């Protein structure tokens, strides 16, 4: 074996932090340009990558250290248009600061993958798990996925490139996971054999990248020009919506193919059900709270309750069809948000979307919008069991709990004046 071969990743299990898993995924995906700016709790993702790049473990990868997140997104846009596979990571305010460039990335249809170690929005200043950051980017045209485990971070990044770079998709994607809870804790993560990853996610079609969008001196092309209202602007926007809706199928296929090659499954890619088939009470939940909720469901099942949960894996595109099927299965369905959509029908982004999805379907399932863990507030298994018991009580009595705030249950909230 040549010396260089020894450095090529072989399948191995490492006990690593969620952020390190994200860095390994970018390495496995053979990203070509990384742009970075530190922000808690993401920082160690890009630090690990700088260690890989400067240590010679990612030959061919360029690493740019820029002066702000705004420049991060602007520079990966440039690198992506030039025809490379790009990666970056951010959190909270960093994502907010990128905002105008995020719109730009989707509008130009660039397959950029960005991980978000999610944290609460300031003020007051908060750096703990809360998905309000990625939710804030909801209407930009990016796809977005939530991860519940360390392994899922690694796996989802690989699946994301697969979907983003599909010529029928060509849109960017966020891969979000709870700050500190996943980013800074360690768990065993299977890092896959590089050859197998290359088989699943081959290098770009040719050295110049994606034929539809790259800048090529042989075929001059402009991006981002002004379009008058009579021009194709409306059509460009319609196509983003059309593509996002169609990408659901692509996500399902990429998830299935991933399972075939690597043996790990994530439901249909959009949602993952847990004991839903015979349940009469269920909950829709996402991120790390979903992992812990499995324990609560197991405990309650042992106590004889027929309860189940559905893990929401993708927020955009929103899996409307799956949500309808989930709602049909149960009499009472809770929807748990860890993130805010102020002024929306429920205050919770996902619960508002669930209600909208069920409109005009004739489904009579009672829905309870719920909030927990905002700004990293601790949520334990016992509390989650109580949350499910609230739903069970709703089923038994037919009545809503009496402590709702504008129709939503804010669990674990302190008394305020």
């Amino acid at each position, binding site marked *: 074996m040549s010396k260089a071969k020894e450095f090529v990743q072989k399948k191995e299990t490492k006990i690593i932090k969620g952020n390190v898993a994200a860095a390994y995924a970018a390495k496995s995906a053979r990203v070509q340009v990384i742009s970075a700016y*530190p922000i808690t709790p993401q920082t160690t993702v890009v*630090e690990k990558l700088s260690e890989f790049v*400067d240590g010679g473990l990612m030959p061919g990868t360029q690493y740019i250290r820029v002066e702000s997140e705004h420049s991060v997104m602007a520079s990966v846009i440039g690198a992506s248009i030039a025809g490379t596979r790009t990666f970056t990571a951010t959190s909270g305010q960093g994502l907010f*600061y990128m905002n105008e460039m995020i719109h730009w990335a989707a509008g130009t249809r660039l397959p950029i993958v960005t991980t978000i170690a999610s944290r609460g929005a300031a003020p007051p200043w908060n750096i703990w798990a809360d998905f309000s950051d990625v939710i804030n980017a909801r209407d930009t045209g990016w796809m977005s996925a939530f991860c519940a485990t360390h392994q899922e971070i690694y796996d989802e990044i690989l699946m994301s490139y697969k979907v983003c770079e599909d010529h029928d998709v060509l849109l960017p994607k966020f891969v979000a996971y709870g700050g500190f809870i996943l980013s800074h804790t360690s768990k065993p993560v299977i890092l896959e054999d590089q050859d197998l990853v290359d088989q699943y996610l081959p290098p770009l079609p040719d050295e110049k990248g994606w034929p539809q969008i790259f800048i090529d001196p042989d075929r001059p092309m402009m991006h981002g020009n002004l379009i008058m209202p009579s021009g194709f602007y409306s059509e460009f926007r319609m196509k983003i919506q059309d593509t996002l809706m169609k990408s659901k199928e692509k996500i399902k296929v990429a998830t299935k193919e991933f399972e075939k090659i690597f043996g790990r499954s994530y439901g249909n890619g959009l949602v993952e059900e847990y004991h839903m088939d015979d349940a009469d009470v269920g909950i829709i939940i996402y991120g790390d709270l979903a992992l812990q909720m499995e324990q609560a469901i197991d405990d309650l099942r042992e106590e004889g309750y027929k309860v189940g949960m559905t893990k929401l894996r993708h927020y955009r595109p929103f899996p409307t069809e799956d949500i309808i099927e989930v709602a049909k299965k149960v009499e009472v369905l809770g929807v748990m948000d860890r993130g805010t959509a102020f002024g929306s029908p429920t205050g919770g982004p996902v619960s508002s979307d669930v209600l909208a999805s069920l409109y005009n379907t004739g489904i009579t399932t009672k829905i309870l919008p719920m909030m927990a863990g905002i700004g990293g507030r601790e949520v334990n298994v016992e509390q989650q069991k109580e949350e499910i018991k609230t739903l069970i009580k709703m089923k038994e009595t037919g009545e809503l709990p009496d402590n709702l705030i504008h129709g939503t249950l804010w669990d674990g909230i302190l008394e305020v004046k």
Partner: protein
Amino acid sequence: MDLNKSETDVENTWCPGCGNFAILQAVKKSIPKLEEKGIKRSDIVMTAGIGCHAKIFDYLNLSGVYSLHGRDIATIQGIKIANPDLKVITFSGDGNGMGEGFAHTMFAAKRNMDMTMVLHHNDVYALTTGQFTPLTEKGWKGPSTPKGSFEDPFNALLMILIAGGTFIARCYSGELNHLTETIIKAIEHKGFSFIEVIQPAVSYHAWTEYKDKMEFLENEPSNFEEALLAIRKNHKFTLGTFYNSKKPVYHEQLYGEHNPITKKVTQEKRIQKLEKILNNL
């Protein structure tokens, strides 16, 4: 909020030995001296960005805004324009003020905004644990630059001078009296005053990197050209006031002696003014 105390009860989480303690101490010491000169404590308003420097906001018992990465410099200008009677200070790290907030810093200097900017220069993004900043020396190794940064750093004083700042000084956390005196001078100065405080972040930079290298300017420059030469010639360990000049300040050029808060125009007055205009048509 009781302003009689100069420090809050918030637990201090700076590393033991951090150069930030001296800045906190110097500001606390300067407040009573400013009061003796007739500046009310309640008229002093501060902002801070995000970073280890910004924790000073939690510890100093003054009114203000704990702003965002780099945005403290813009926020403090808003406060000043709304009520020019206030003495406004922004605390900024070298990453915060010369990186993410760079444009705000340059424009505050360009406008000669009547404010004080204290730049906590520690050569590191300390809160995110160890990345190089726009002012870090070339070759410094950190977790984002394992092989060492290959970028040349900014000379902050030079940039402020060129941009239009009118009071420019460099201080050191190990020279507390000089730091305190300079803070007082900067706050009293009418116009954009900028103090770069060399402030070792001891978890990343040893005091010995700075301690024996510090020296004071022999002669303080008396005009722009001299200041330009002195700032270019003297490396980052030279302390003193490099530039101190007079220029019209932003808010006075904007609205003269007006104060949008204390001299708010009443509805009655607005109607009188409108009537005057209408009658003259």
